[in-house]
């Protein structure tokens, strides 16, 4: 008992400060200087290595990628513009071709119409001519026929009188009678 007490007292006497430190290590002031020095060395080393070696490398990777993506996007935009331009040119060419085709169609149609028109006109003229010829022929025949009517009338009248009287009248008398009847 006494011996134990002595030991305890001896421990306390042995290192008063040490006993207090042992109670709570983070407040053990005699470790401070060493920790600060080593922290300074470590942190200075860490900062130097990171700022001179690691971070430029890391930032470089990220920056490279950003630049590459930006470049690719620009290229894509340029290509899109070119494609749009090509599209516009195609539309224009198409419109031109359409216009030309329409003009050609119009021309052909006009030409065909003119041709058929001419043919029709020629045919019509031909027909008209033949019609006129026929009409003329008919009218000539009619006139000719009409000129024979007097003769037939005179012959008929002579024949009738001859039958009735048994004697043929004089042609002058018949003529005069016909003239009278006609009047």
């Amino acid at each position, binding site marked *: 008992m006494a011996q134990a007490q002595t030991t305890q007292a001896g421990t306390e006497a042995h290192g008063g400060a040490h006993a207090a430190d042992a109670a709570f290590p*983070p407040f053990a002031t005699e470790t401070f200087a*060493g920790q600060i020095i080593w922290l300074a060395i470590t*942190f200075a*080393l*860490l*900062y130097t290595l990171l*700022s001179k070696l690691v971070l430029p490398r890391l930032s470089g990777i*990220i920056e490279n990628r950003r630049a590459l993506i930006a470049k690719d996007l620009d290229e894509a935009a340029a290509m899109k513009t070119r494609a749009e331009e090509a599209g516009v040119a195609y539309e224009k060419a198409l419109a031109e071709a359409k216009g030309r085709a329409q003009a050609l169609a119009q021309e052909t149609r006009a030409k065909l119409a003119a041709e058929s028109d001419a043919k029709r006109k020629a045919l019509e003229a031909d027909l008209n001519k033949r019609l006129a010829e026929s009409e003329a022929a008919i009218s000539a025949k009619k006139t000719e026929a009409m000129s024979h009517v007097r003769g037939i009338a005179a012959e008929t009248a002579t024949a009738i009188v001859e039958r009735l009287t048994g004697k043929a009248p004089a042609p002058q008398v018949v003529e005069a009678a016909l003239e009278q009847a006609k009047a």
Partner: protein
Amino acid sequence: MASPIEQFQVKPIIPVINFTNSSLFMIGAAAVIVGGLLYATRKKALVPGRAQSVAEILHDFVANTLTDTTGREGMKFFPFVFSLFMFVLTANLLGMIPGFFTVTSQIVVTFALALLVIGTVIIYGFVAHGVHFLHLFTPSGVPGWLLPFITVIEIISFLSRPISLSLRLFANMLAGHIALKVFGGFVVSLGTAGIGIALLSPLPLLMAVGLTALEFLVAALQAYVFTVLTCIYLNDALHPGH
């Protein structure tokens, strides 16, 4: 059984140059960061693989956090903020491996980092803006009679920044690791206490599993919080008088 705070003991490895387990894990964290990032970016691939994706996500994450707070001109602090974030994050996560020393559970380490941030703010503020930097303490649009009080409050708030910045990280890491150790200790204590009580020992084990998940969250979150606050303080140096 070891006490819950035994894990925070700084033990000398090479006493002559003050090289301790704390120093070892600082160097380890730095090596993991530099080695990991160099390994991840070794192919410089246009289409990143898994490791390179992680590296790029970390890069973009810190860059976005910084530019969201400070604008484009804040990018001059990018290597500094990235180093801080990676160092705190890696130190926190390395500490989650059983038996590993947690560098960020040492108040002197977190306070030194916070002082580095505030020192950068003060030095850059004065170099870039001269006396105009002091407008940080005299917000515009405050009535004249109120200005002395506001200025005092602003100065106190400015001076308390390194303390709150370092204590937040330190306390979170410390408390989490103690809680894990305590619940782990409960498992052993209950398990060896007797047959009836031993049946209860899975309960703290479940708790420890849940806490482990929570501690991973805290490790990442505190690194992020430290970084965001660093960005906000740097914004003061870049744009005083806002």
